[in-house]
């Protein structure tokens, strides 16, 4: 099921407008990235998918947000939670149980399943995130990366179609960040729609199918990775958000007039550029 924003605007209670007339579609099965400078409304947009905005905070709203056929304002957070699994930026505070297995089982406690059925689903969810065998470990004893994975497993266990994550890699080192995004990509390949808020775009370079840029509450651009980065490159105040690899690509395109493919990794870039560069012998002959 796709997610649709139609002229959606929102303001928190006692506060100014934080999202202004957003119209966009997040296709089913996409790996969508919400990016932009801080305080752009990225978190609010992500929370609108799960219905946190407006159900949890109240506030004023205009327009609609549709998840599948359901209009979020006419549903409630519990119902939407069946389709949308949300991992908040402060994922540590999202973990409420004492052990890993209990945390994952928490979402299934009122599902009507019996204990062994729940245990089976728990171990499947843990396997999906790479935490197999840690059922009895205490939550407080996990590392940051493990807690992040646990938070993901805990929302996966109810089998939502859509996963929304707010800055999933912000507290992790580069290895940890790469690991989490690989995991999310695997889930994407298994059919889940992934929506992440991320401002370090190099982390999502190999995976993103759609990127949306928010600035001061407005949707400035939405499109494929290639289109969006080209757009950001042209805006002086969004230029910094373009990852270094693409900064090189776009500058080279400007200066040579060539057009390159959408580079997902440095290796891909190198193999394309090497076809245009002379071999060693040629180079030596010319400089001689």
């Amino acid at each position, binding site marked *: 099921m796709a997610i649709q924003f139609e002229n959606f605007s929102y303001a928190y209670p006692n506060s100014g407008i934080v999202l202004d007339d957003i119209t966009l579609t997040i296709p089913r099965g996409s790996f969508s990235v919400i990016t932009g400078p801080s305080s752009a409304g990225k978190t609010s947009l992500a929370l609108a998918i799960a219905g946190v905005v407006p159900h949890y905070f109240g506030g004023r709203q205009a327009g609609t947000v549709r998840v599948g056929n359901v209009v979020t304002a006419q549903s409630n957070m519990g119902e939407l939670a069946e389709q949308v699994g949300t991992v908040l930026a402060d994922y540590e505070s999202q973990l409420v149980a004492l052990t890993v297995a209990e945390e994952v089982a928490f979402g299934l406690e009122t599902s009507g399943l019996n204990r062994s059925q729940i245990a089976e689903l728990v171990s499947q969810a843990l396997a999906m995130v790479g935490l197999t065998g840690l059922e009895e470990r205490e939550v407080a004893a996990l590392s940051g990366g493990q807690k992040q994975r646990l938070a993901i497993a805990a929302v996966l266990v109810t089998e939502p179609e859509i996963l929304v994550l707010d800055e999933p890699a912000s507290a992790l*080192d580069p290895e940890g960040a790469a690991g989490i995004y690989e995991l999310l990509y695997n889930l994407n390949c298994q059919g889940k729609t992934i929506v992440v808020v991320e401002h370090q775009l190099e982390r999502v370079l190999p995976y993103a199918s759609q990127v949306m840029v928010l600035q001061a509450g407005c949707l400035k651009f939405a499109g494929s990775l290639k289109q969006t980065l080209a757009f950001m490159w042209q805006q002086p105040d969004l230029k910094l958000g373009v990852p270094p690899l693409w900064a090189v690509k776009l500058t*080279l395109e400007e200066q040579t007039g060539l057009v390159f493919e959408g580079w997902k990794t440095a290796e891909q870039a190198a193999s394309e550029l090497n076809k245009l*560069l002379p071999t060693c012998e040629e180079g030596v002959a010319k400089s001689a």
Partner: protein
Amino acid sequence: MPDILLDMKKVMFAYNSGGQALAGVDFAVEAGAFAAIVGRNGSGKTTLTRMAMSLIKPASGTISFGGQDTAKLTPADMARSIGYVFQNPDRQIFRDTVAKEVAYGPEQLAFTPEEINQSVAWALRVTGLTELAGSFPRLLSRGQKQKVAIASAIAMRPKMLILDEPTSGQDPWDAQNLMELLTELNQQGITILLVTHDMELIAKYVDRVTVLDSGNKVFDGKPSELFNGNHTINAWGLLPPTTVALGRQLAGITADNAEELIKQVTTVINRRKEDHA
């Protein structure tokens, strides 16, 4: 030859839970340097800086700052010389205006009221927070809070700033802002020591980088040397900046930063176009 400001010799440390955090490391920072320590989590980099601040004491080895042995000093004593900026400013902000928050450090160090006012005004000006002086710090953005933490540190007039992962969790705009601030502070004479994972920033801003791996110092020198391909940085849990990694894979290109790379590649491509024309 610039003076050595922070001098750590043969420091060793082991945690109670076992495993050696630091195995006899020599580490020195010169006055006026813009230096960084890198390494994977658990390599000992944060242990080293915490030791410099006397938050933990070495099991053996000596540490001196400005020529003075710090063995008997506490972190509050060290606050006069080193401003330590932690990763999470929410763990220290508690007053209701930015100006009062920044004044906390100078007050604890018993500055006179005029000194406090001057230091706070200067710190707010340098960090660009003067307009926010009356704001409630808890409602500021992450980048702004980080600046409040830095202002709080420099208001104590330290000779050196140590920052633990200052750009972690920040967007590229705030991170750039922060690094420019640190460069400005460095130019004003404050020695900067960063603990970070961000290789791009190191390549761009830092003069000197030290790499720790499993409690040992494995590299100490310029960023360009670190990334020149002669070192097995992957084994240390590090990745070179993307443009450096790209440059290394391109035939006939030697570049250690983006500008160089673009210049060389453009020249070659344009030259080939002319030749083929």
